[in-house]
């Protein structure tokens, strides 16, 4: 499994982990939980575009990663 896939698994897990905070925070109008949930969700959402943008900057002759 490639490093990118492992990172995306982490990103997806963050998005799913954020939803209980968003749900409870949104229902009870508790802004603390909502903010926490949104922060976690934003980190999860940001990972894929960041990977895309940083991947474009890698030199073409970079050595292959040693994922097994």
């Amino acid at each position, binding site marked *: 499994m490639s490093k990118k896939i492992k990172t*995306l698994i982490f*990103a997806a897990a963050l998005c799913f982990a954020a*939803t209980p905070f968003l749900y409870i925070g949104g*229902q009870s109008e508790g802004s603390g939980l909502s903010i926490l949930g*949104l922060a976690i969700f*934003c980190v999860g*959402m940001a990972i*894929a575009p960041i990977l895309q943008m940083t991947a474009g900057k890698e030199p073409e002759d970079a050595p292959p990663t040693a994922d097994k």
Partner: protein
Amino acid sequence: MLDFAVPITMGNWILAFIPIVILLALLVGFRWGAAEAGALTWFIVVLVAVFAYKTPLNTLALETVKGVWSAVFSILVVVWPAILIYEVTNEAGAFEPFRKGMERVTPNRLLQIMAFAWGFAGFLQGVTGFGVPVAICAPLLVGIGVRPLQAVILALVGHAWNNTFGTIAVAWLALKDVTQLSGAEAAVTALYSGAFIWMFNIVAGLTICWIYGKAKAIKEGLPAVVIISLLQGGGTLVLSQWNDVVNGFIAGTMGFLIIFVLGRTNWYNKPSSVKTDIFIDDDQITSDAATEDKMGFHLAFSPYYILLTLTLGILLIAPIKNALSVWKWSIPIPETATGYGFVNPEAAAYGAFTPLAHGATFLLASALIGYLIYNSKGFIEPGGMGRIMARTIEKCIPATIAMVSLTALSVLMRDTGQAAVLAYGVGTATGGFYAFMAPFVGILGAFMTGSNTAANILFGSFQQTAAQVIGSNEAAILAAQTAGAAAGNTIAPGNVLLGTTTVGLLGKEGDVLRVTMVVALGLAAVIGIAVMFVA
């Protein structure tokens, strides 16, 4: 012209349109994958929602939950088992016997393509929907040797005509429900809808031929296009006046079965004479002669037979379906509102998912039973399950990110009024020219929601009001809405992603959209012109 909570200004319209432009630019222009493009666009939608559409924090939080819930229980539940069934079939080496078997049905590769991309996809859409036709038919096309990119495009174009009356006509019933049409009004609207869907159906058949081999393929495929579309599109038109619920199923079934007859005719009982580049070269297809000898067509197709049996046996037998539909998963969502007073009512059971009567469960069961069958016959090598699961997870993860971001952004646009501002803005600006734009609004709805049904719910009543305000033909406008929404399924990122994920082409969504956008927008223009004549 139209009363609406959010100010319909040029500034608000442009701000609502910016995310769509950016999403398309990233996908088509920069060739980003849907996961990356969707996630970045989600941030932009959030900024627009908070700063321009006055969305408070708790609404933002709950709308995000709605988005995640919808992504998982509307789309990902189909994506995950669809990938699994493909990987099981692939691990067993069942695609090669399957391809050989198809050649016995007809040696004509153009008709083989039509059989899967148009006939079988339309049939599946008539029965199950939920993206299953794309998730099944695109890999099957790859299985018979079609290049993955073309396979996705063909399946998208070939299935979408049956979106309105397929899946037990749920999209059509939703349109009738939100517009409160009388019996007579519904009959006229159904007639127009049937006519526009027939146009779509013909365009789909011709597009499949064009992709196969341009004008020469259209010439060779014309008899099949005429006969199949007579049964699919013409059947839809006639049946629209008789029975809503089984319309799509009957039209889809007739259109599929006639292909087996066509394969015996002088037109198609010989190899195609048209040169095509949509197939992977035969010498590139890894062929296992031992597998071919041992595994016949029917054994190779066994997971799909199980899928058909489960689907037909459960969804079309009302008492069984009703009994299995009792168990539902849903989430209660309180009322949400924006600072502009755009209110989304409380939902006691948001996004209800019926696990025992959903196509996703049938797919999962078919994959598991298919694995057991292949394994019992010795077609799964030791360690096969591990390889299947590894490849499935590798494909599922990027698709999961993509669907969560795309659904979250579309739900946020819908429930903060951005989607409605887009539609109302078009209505306000175009005035008497609106009749032409009606199918494009349908396309917009499907593009944002990935569903003909959701698009009709989102914009059905708006289209009705717009038709009344401009004094246009209401039935034709509503028919254009649902036909446009059906066409919009060919460009809805979620549907595109279903195809690219299941054929292992993830990240190439933009390449698919380059073709399907031309088909969808071209078709909408044709329907728009037709509406202007009758409106």
